[in-house]
């Protein structure tokens, strides 16, 4: 009688153990990111040095990841609020983030939008906006033609006959 009871207890222990391991695996699979995140020491500055107004808060549309404002894709830096407030009313921020220009170039684009696209007078915000754009979205010299960006190529195996 007694040995059978021991066997049953051993089996139950094993089943419990296996279930426990499975549960842990499942938990890790589903919530591992969050746990790792919790255990990792907080970086002192998650954003760039810039942090007034928006950007650090709990609202999902105000989240900033690695210096990029999640909702708009704009670099979160000085002048961000002015750019978001004045530029994204008409067009999406993608029109900004895909372009590069000098201060003179960005000013010219603003003049063009004022002359033809109903953009209002930006007043004292203009200087802030142009500075933000020329600093964060400045042109790079790529010569007469850039080579293929070999680093970013996604290599795949092509099966041939």
């Amino acid at each position: 009688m007694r040995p059978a009871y021991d066997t049953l207890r051993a089996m139950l222990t094993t089943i419990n153990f296996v279930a426990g391991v499975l549960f842990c695996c499942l938990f890790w699979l589903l919530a591992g990111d969050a746990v790792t995140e919790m255990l990792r020491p907080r970086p002192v500055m998650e954003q760039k040095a810039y942090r007034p107004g928006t950007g650090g808060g709990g609202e999902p549309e105000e989240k900033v990841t690695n210096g990029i404002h999640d909702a708009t894709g704009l670099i979160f830096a000085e002048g961000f609020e002015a750019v978001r407030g004045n530029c994204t009313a008409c067009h999406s921020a993608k029109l900004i983030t895909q372009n590069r220009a000098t201060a003179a170039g960005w000013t010219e684009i603003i003049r063009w939008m004022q002359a033809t696209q109903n953009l209002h007078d930006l007043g004292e915000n203009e200087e802030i906006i142009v500075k933000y754009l020329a600093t964060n979205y400045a042109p790079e010299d790529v010569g007469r033609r850039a080579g293929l960006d070999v680093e970013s190529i996604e290599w795949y195996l092509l099966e041939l006959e």
Partner: protein
Amino acid sequence: MQNSRREFLRTASLTTLGLALGTKVVFADNLPDGMSLIGLPGKDPGMVILNDRPPNAETPAHMLDDALTPNDRFFVRCNGLPPENANPATWTLTIGGEAVRNEKTYTLQELKTRFPVVSYDLTLECGGNGRSEFNPPAKGNQWSTGAVSCARWTGVRLKDVLNDAGLTSAAVYVGYYGKDTHLSGDPDKVVISRGVPIRKALEEESLIAWEMNGAPLPMLNGYPLRLVFGGFPASCSGKWLDKIVVRDRVHDGPKMTGQSYRVPCKPVPPGRVVPDDEMCIIEEMPVKSLITFPKTGATIAAGKTLPIRGKAWTAAAAITKMEFSIDFGASWQACKLENAANRYAWQLFSARVDFPQSGYYEVWARATDAGGNSQPMLLPGWNPRGYLNNACHRIAVKVADQ
């Protein structure tokens, strides 16, 4: 480890989404993190969205491998917002302007029944296709290679309708007006109103179209009615077509003037500020080609022959020669080139590529047209707005070791 778990979760959630939608989420791998899985309405999620207000999306080269571009892969270029609730039953087209005898309005049904209905394969390419490569950079949507597509358009000839309305000898240019709305929300502001010289308007292949590849136009491509002019910048082919004006002068609607869709009349050094009066309207688009198979990044086994395929197009009579190079232009080899279905349709090309040994290669493609024009390997002449980049397309290929 963490990455692979994330990968698994991503795959799992996409699979779940696919199950929920009853289909596989094609090209989900191409989605940047955080990008909407839905994409633009009526468009393949593999399209690269450059802007969502206004909607602008290009087609990656490997997604242009079909002989004719499927409607959900035809590139999207909008200057404003498409009209809401466009109704073909009540849609009308008005022909007016200084050089028309009497202003005349047609219902869509009248257009379909009063004039011969024709179909042509016509390539449309945005004037700014390839803009992203210019240095110094040019403002605007940073198109790489994918603002081009070719479809079979069905409609009536523009010249038949213009003749019905009665052209006068004063006709110089036609301009269009569409029913799209301006981003600023101002209902009276015209988004874009461009057009073509009268000689182009009167060509056989210049269409007022309501069908693309046998189906109604996609909403983002001008539903229910648009102009189609092959060989000219696609911005000439007005969408959501409401009115055509026959002008006694060069049309001067928004984006015809200033620096829009214009290049310096004389070549300028990169970065030069060019006054408006020294900028000339772009008419014909240059000779160009794309490798549509394989997708860049192919790794093949040693000793294998790689088949390549692609498309070539021009505003000239035809593409007459198509070549590829695997040694950065030191030598060129001929591709097999098919005839066009009609003028302004793109032409299919193919070749079989052998590699001398294992390693990293780039396959470059170069088209030459009946006018003797070919594609540069570097960027063509710099211009302030970054138009007309017809530099050779190239893909990366790796041949594995034995």
